[in-house]
């Protein structure tokens, strides 16, 4: 389009945008113009006189044409010009920023890498260099994660591991402050990794009136590439858990094909899944199962094998650190009456060394049976009466015990166990549970994910066929077999259970995982919701033990054990300790600092603001440093500090909190410092970012095809000392074309009308 315009109008549209239109007629033109005008009047009068065979319309058309011709001639005579401000050559600087990061190695177009453009155009003999050098004093810079001056083009190594365009522009602005800067040229693929965005760097440029011209290299879409964009992993898991990891995969050019995703645990392949690659451009989430058997901080690497012809292989890998803990999680199970459910739940998780189910069973008023307690004093007074005692457990299971057994304070404590302590609460069904037990309207009912009807105290005995919902069939805790299909099929074969608490409604925000179908309709069998820091679960059935004892269930079947093990592990998942530490980000490049945050509570899980919190960091080489964490003031109980790793590898960070000489607790986290491959992710050309940079600062955007006009554009749009240039418009080809077409039209019309 532009070239057609340029052909017709002699100059590029940019000049017409930036220039002002004017006539610059020399003085001698005026009498000539006058003569022409008189002449045209005379001619017009003769036309009117000479009738001949012409009709009035003919005469009008011909007259009009002649007048137009004269007008065009007049237009040219008056010398129309375009006045543009052009930078005075060699008066100002032009900064050229060249992207020196690894993504420049990519060869999108098949043969040549992106660096080829730089070699060709910006080298000593490069066309672009020469056109720019004519008019400006060039200053070269290279940038990736940091920007530096570039004395020689050969110094470019293209080894940068991340790209920060904003920081580069800031650097240049600083470096050339005080010198007249006409503009900045950024040559890059636009893959910016800076966390903060571009605005802080662009505003000062805009304020100073210095435009940024962006040259985008590469293609908008990599033709053949598979990318493992992200993996979502839990931070910690219990040893022996099966972790379900969500991996986000996108692909171009391989849609529908099968690919293998490997999971490595410190170099050893522990799992291999086959996935189907999604359609071009549409990222898909795939679930990968990983077994966490070895305790300690495990570096997991998720990798899709590079395919033939794939342009970028480095973006097929994601690393994650998952801490596998060998801990015995204490769960308090309180039953208000002897029930078989207690026996079979205990049996189901007996073999799980990471779960300790402490059972408190009421056998008569004020008479309790205590099982699996740590010592003779534990629960000696029956159900815990203080928060400290209750909060020492990580989860609570309530069986069939009426609400009136608890004091109001205890019911409040149970709700706070979930909301404040962050523990997991599971309410089982039974004749004294839910509404039947009088829980409607109590603080505990607030926490539960199901709606309780205060008026409903009757026992609704019904047999239910239990099935997972859509959410339940994909949830890891509800998986009864290795694959989802096999799991759903297994659910179908389980014998029906019974319920006497008819619960049909869940609260908004709650998720139903299992439903039961009976003669009286569908009922909720398992639902949960997040409540404050923790989660509350409701399971209004009373005999899940039938899935172990029923005659239709084979003796060697482990469904009952598996289900309860998974459910209880989920119940204690992510339940916080009094001291909880985290690092942001949890994977850093060497020399990149990270923030250590600790949330500190006392034993009643009340936030503490005057604790002394120290983080002890052990580097991979064994050096130990102490980082004191300071209270952030804005949030209760939150303490922060920063640390910069000096070498790659796994850093072991122990956080200890004390108040006076009382220890409040400890936590331990790991941060992996490793070379980042961020450059290779989404490594296509980000033209929208580059265009935005150009637009916001008054610059323009170019591709290698259009970069020829860069030099000239800078001349007219840059900042600095300018001089007015006059561009003649009278010799525009379009003027000539217009004249010729008018004359031709008149001649054709005459011939057509037979007027000679």
């Amino acid at each position, binding site marked *: 389009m532009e070239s057609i315009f340029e052909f017709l109008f002699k100059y590029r549209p940019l000049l017409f945008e930036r220039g002002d239109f004017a006539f610059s007629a020399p003085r001698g033109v005026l009498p000539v113009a006058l003569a022409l005008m008189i002449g045209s009047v005379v001619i017009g009068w003769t036309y009117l006189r000479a009738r001949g065979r012409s009709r009035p319309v003919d005469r009008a058309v011909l007259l009009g044409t002649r007048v137009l011709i004269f007008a065009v001639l007049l237009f040219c005579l008056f010398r129309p010009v375009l006045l543009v401000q052009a930078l005075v050559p060699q008066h100002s600087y032009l900064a050229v920023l060249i992207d020196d990061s690894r993504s420049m190695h990519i060869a999108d177009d098949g043969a040549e890498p992106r660096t080829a453009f730089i070699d060709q155009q910006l080298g000593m003999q490069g066309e672009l260099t020469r056109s720019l050098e004519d008019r400006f004093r060039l200053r070269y810079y290279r940038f990736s994660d940091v920007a530096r001056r570039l004395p020689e083009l050969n110094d470019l190594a293209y080894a940068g591991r991340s790209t920060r365009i904003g920081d580069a522009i800031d650097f240049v602005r600083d470096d050339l402050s005080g010198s007249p800067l006409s503009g900045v040229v950024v040559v890059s693929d636009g893959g910016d990794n800076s966390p903060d965005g571009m605005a802080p760097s662009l505003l000062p440029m805009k304020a100073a009136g210095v435009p940024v011209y962006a040259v985008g290299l590469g293609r908008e879409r990599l033709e053949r590439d598979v990318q493992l964009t992200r993996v979502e992993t839990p931070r910690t898991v219990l040893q022996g858990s099966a972790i379900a990891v969500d991996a986000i995969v996108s692909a171009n050019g391989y849609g529908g094909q099968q690919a293998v995703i490997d999971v490595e645990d410190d170099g050893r392949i522990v799992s291999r899944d086959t996935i189907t690659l999604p359609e071009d451009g549409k990222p898909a989430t795939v679930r990968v199962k990983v077994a966490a058997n070895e305790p300690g901080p495990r570096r997991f690497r998720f990798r899709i094998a590079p395919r033939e012809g794939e342009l970028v292989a480095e973006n097929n890998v994601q690393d994650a650190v998952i801490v596998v803990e060998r801990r015995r999680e204490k769960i308090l199970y309180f039953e208000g009456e002897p029930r078989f459910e207690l026996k079979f739940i205990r049996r189901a998780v007996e073999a799980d060394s990471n779960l300790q189910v402490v059972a408190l069973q009421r056998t*008569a008023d004020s008479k309790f049976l205590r099982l699996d307690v740590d010592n003779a004093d534990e629960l000696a007074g029956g159900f815990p009466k203080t928060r400290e005692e209750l909060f020492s457990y990580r989860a609570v299971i309530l069986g069939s015990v009426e609400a009136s057994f608890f004091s109001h304070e205890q019911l409040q404590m149970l709700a706070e166990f979930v909301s404040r302590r962050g523990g997991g609460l599971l309410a089982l069904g039974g004749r004294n549970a839910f509404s039947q037990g009088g829980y409607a309207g109590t603080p505990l009912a607030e926490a539960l994910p199901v709606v309780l009807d205060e008026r409903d105290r009757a026992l609704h005995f019904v047999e239910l066929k239990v099935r997972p919902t859509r959410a339940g069939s994909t949830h890891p805790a509800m998986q009864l077999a290795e694959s989802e299909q096999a799991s759903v099929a297994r659910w179908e074969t389980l014998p029906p259970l019974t319920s006497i608490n008819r619960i049909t409604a869940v609260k908004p925000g709650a998720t139903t995982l299992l439903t039961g179908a009976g003669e009286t309709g569908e009922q909720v069998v398992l639902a949960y919701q997040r409540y404050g820091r923790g989660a509350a679960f409701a399971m209004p059935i009373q005999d899940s033990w039938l899935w172990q004892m029923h005659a239709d269930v084979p003796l060697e079947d482990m469904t009952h054990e598996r289900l309860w093990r998974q459910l209880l592990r989920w119940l204690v998942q992510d339940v916080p300790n009094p001291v909880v530490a985290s690092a942001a980000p949890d994977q850093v490049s060497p020399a990149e600092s990270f923030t250590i945050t600790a949330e500190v509570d006392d034993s009643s899980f009340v936030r503490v603001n005057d604790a002394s919190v120290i983080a002890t960091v052990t580097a991979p080489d064994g050096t130990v440093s102490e980082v004191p964490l300071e209270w952030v003031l804005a949030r209760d109980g939150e303490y922060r500090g920063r640390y910069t790793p000096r070498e790659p590898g796994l850093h072991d960070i122990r956080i200890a909190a004390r108040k006076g000489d009382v220890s409040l607790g400890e936590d331990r986290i790991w941060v992996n410092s490793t070379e980042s491959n961020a450059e290779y992710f989404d490594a296509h050309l980000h033209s929208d970012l580059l265009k935005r940079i150009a637009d916001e600062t008054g610059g323009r955007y170019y591709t290698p095809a259009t970069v020829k006009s860069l030099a000239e554009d800078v001349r007219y749009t840059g900042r600095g000392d300018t001089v007015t240039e006059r561009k003649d418009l009278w010799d525009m080809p379009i003027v000539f074309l217009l004249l010729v077409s008018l004359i031709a039209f008149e001649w054709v019309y005459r011939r057509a009308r037979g007027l000679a």
Partner: protein
Amino acid sequence: MSNGRRFQNGLHTVRGGKRGPSLSGAVLLRRIGFSGVALATTLPIPVLALSVSLLREAPPARGTAGIAVNAECDRATGAGCEFHEFTFTRAIYSSPSRERGGFRGGFGSWATDYPKADLQFAMVMQRLAQHLDIAQTENAVRLDDPQLRRFPWLYAVEVGRMALTEAEVTGLRSYLAAGGFLFVDDFWGGRQWDQFEQNIRRVLPNLPIVDLPLSHPLFTSYYNITEILQVPNVGNARWGETTECYGCDPAVRAIFDEHGRLLVLISFNSDLGDAWEWAEQPFYPVKYSTYAFQLAVNAIVYAMSH
């Protein structure tokens, strides 16, 4: 007399079922009423003075364990049915045919004390373990019946006269392996022990029978039981005797599985069933009935939590 056999887990019928086809059509009420004697639940347990009305130990339908469901009970919706967590369940097992004739009008030794002991037991249990939800009815189930699995606690009496069929052996074995608990009682002397052992060996070939020490948690799961007593049958009790044979000392034994779980509790040279059945009789010594109920409660509480 109806069987009152459990169908659902604990689901039972309101009493008043018909007799089995081989018996007359009289409907039998076996409701046991109380006279107004208060029961103290603290130790030692005083014997309840029960006024028994219209009590009859009627034998069950011969050789069957039919489902007696009252007309009002809608099994699918549960309407008109009662539900209870625990049902005292008695095992129906096979005995040698020559033995059967002498028992309970032809019904094998499994029906000893049935159903009075069962019903009386259920009523007393309700008073002793206040929070135990126990069905007030008898429930006899065959060992080879798949429905047995709905009742994880099982009682078998006079096991010295057992002669299990293959189906019963398989049924009992799978029942115990799945998580069931068996309490056997009322067999005396060497010959009956051998008979029992022979049968139980077929069920659990590789697990030894061991003495249960008083230090075992079962003896403290509800009451603190500090000595093993010999509980006499009703006849001997009347005469002040306890033993049915010379040199027969009472013993409580057990069979554990390879994980240490208690599968079978054995009360040998003792007749707990009679103590439950005849507790209300003035001549039946309080200390034996007390002990019998105590051991039973402990067995129930233990088996429902381990």
